[in-house]
């Protein structure tokens, strides 16, 4: 599994969950998701649960903040790092 697979999975989840109905082209890698209010705290909880199951990682509470979850690019980098740490 490479970064592109992670990116695809994250995008599919977001476009199906919080952004249902959005044009996929508008979900760019660096679009701010948390600081813009596009995804709320409940959306992050659903996303972390999905990532944990899909990628067999464990996300600690302090890791689910804006630093790691504000954009698709940041989420992908974070998941890739967690997988290497396993």
């Amino acid at each position, binding site marked *: 599994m490479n970064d592109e697979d992670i990116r695809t999975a994250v995008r599919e989840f977001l476009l199906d969950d*919080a*952004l*249902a*109905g*959005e*044009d996929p082209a*508008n*979900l760019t890698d660096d*679009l701010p998701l948390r600081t*813009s*209010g*596009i*995804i*709320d*705290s*409940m959306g992050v*909880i659903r996303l972390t*649960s999905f990532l944990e199951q899909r990628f067999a990682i464990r996300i*600690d*509470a*302090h890791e*689910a*903040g804006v630093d790691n979850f504000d954009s698709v690019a940041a989420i992908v980098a974070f998941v890739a790092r967690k997988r290497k740490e396993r």
Partner: protein
Amino acid sequence: MRGDTTITDAVDAAIARYPDAVAVIAPDGRTHTYAELDGMADRFASALAVRGVVAGDRVGVCRAKGFETVAALVGIMRLGAAYVPVDPSSPSERNRTIFDDCTVRAIVTDEPALARLGQPDGVATIVGTPSAPHARERAPATPDDLAYILYTSGSTGRPKGVCLTHRNAMSFVQWCIATFAPGPGDRCSSHAPFHFDLSILDLWMTLASGASVALIDESLAKDPRALAAWIAATRITNWYSVPSILALMAEHGRLDEHDHSALRVVCFAGEVFPIPQLLALRAKWPGLAMWNLYGPTETNVCTALRIPDAVDAARTDPFPIGPACAHCEVRIVDDRGHPLQPGGVGRIICRGAPVMRGYWGVDPAETAAFITVDGTRWYDTGDLGAMDADGVVDFRGRRDRMVKRRGYRIELGEIEAGLARSPLIAECAVWSTSDAGEVRIHAAVVAADDAKLGVIALRSHCAAALPPYMAPDRFVVVDALPRTSTGKIDYQSLRAR
């Protein structure tokens, strides 16, 4: 429990009796004694007095939760003034509307909140922590003076200020102390933000009884895993919150990994606790006292039910909201104010010491929610209920377009007004659905000429125009809103979408 005292007198009595006990556990874990609370409250009182605040004034509070913020509330009340707390993360326009509405004399704030709010014209601000006091400023309030104003969602899009006196608060606080028996050594959570009425129990029950209030800041409040760890590490004895975060903790909190043996009382209020999640929580936290509290901001808590220790696993109906608390009276009446027979569904009305004085700037005689029954004034909650022969009330929903989500009161009309401010939106309609106790908010929107409406654009607009808890869960873009034959928006047909 008639509330014949003031919040300030009750807290001052605890300060005198337990000066060395921990009063506040800050979000960073630091502890502050009652003596320190006393000194810091005087600093705020003194700084506010210098800025012209006198008895009868209102003082805005737009500040992150923390020890100093609690002290500021005490300091404001020591001057005989009322505090007006707002959510620092709410849109600044909404907060400025609130402060203008009740003409605050001063605003207590911090750097990040002030940057968001913007420097208000002609209103003094205290940013951060004031320096040491020159004097102990005191202007004692009476029980019937205003203690605080909590702004709630208004159906026209304009928040309305619920005015509560010291008696309103203390009658409820005295009931809490008699019921939950907090005392020195207890550590009580403060999960709700201070602009939310759950904070009245968290702050004033705790600080009137010599116990410690443990503050949960905004970043921790929504994180079920971090909260479960925090409850264990802080050895919380009394918890109070909306059901939704308890349900999230039962589901995502990894409760099995933590030692929660210090917990002895768990209270929830603000919305219906769906039974499957309540059963899950009861199984993880057996043996402690669980209470379902009910009451709109206007009445504090007016009914309460202790959840049985053993709950039938086959139960599907939510628990009743319980009988009236000892500090007030509750009745179920028909549209003309006549009491109903046991089991009849009607309006839940309340009277007594905890019921608000009125809405800020509105003549109580003009307030539709105040009704006269048997020659006295009652508050009509707008909620529907049925009472059994033992006086236990079962909640049966709302009469109007107000919904509760994550414990917040939301007027769907306020969301519509907020959405309509977007230049991208020509018109919109908002409705809610409830599935197994989970409330979802839906919005149908019609794009303004040539505007391309996507969820990203709509959510970005909501973040700027509405408090986070009001943002719709789902948007449906339509060419035109469905209308009934009389031209009204056809919500029935929207619900089917």
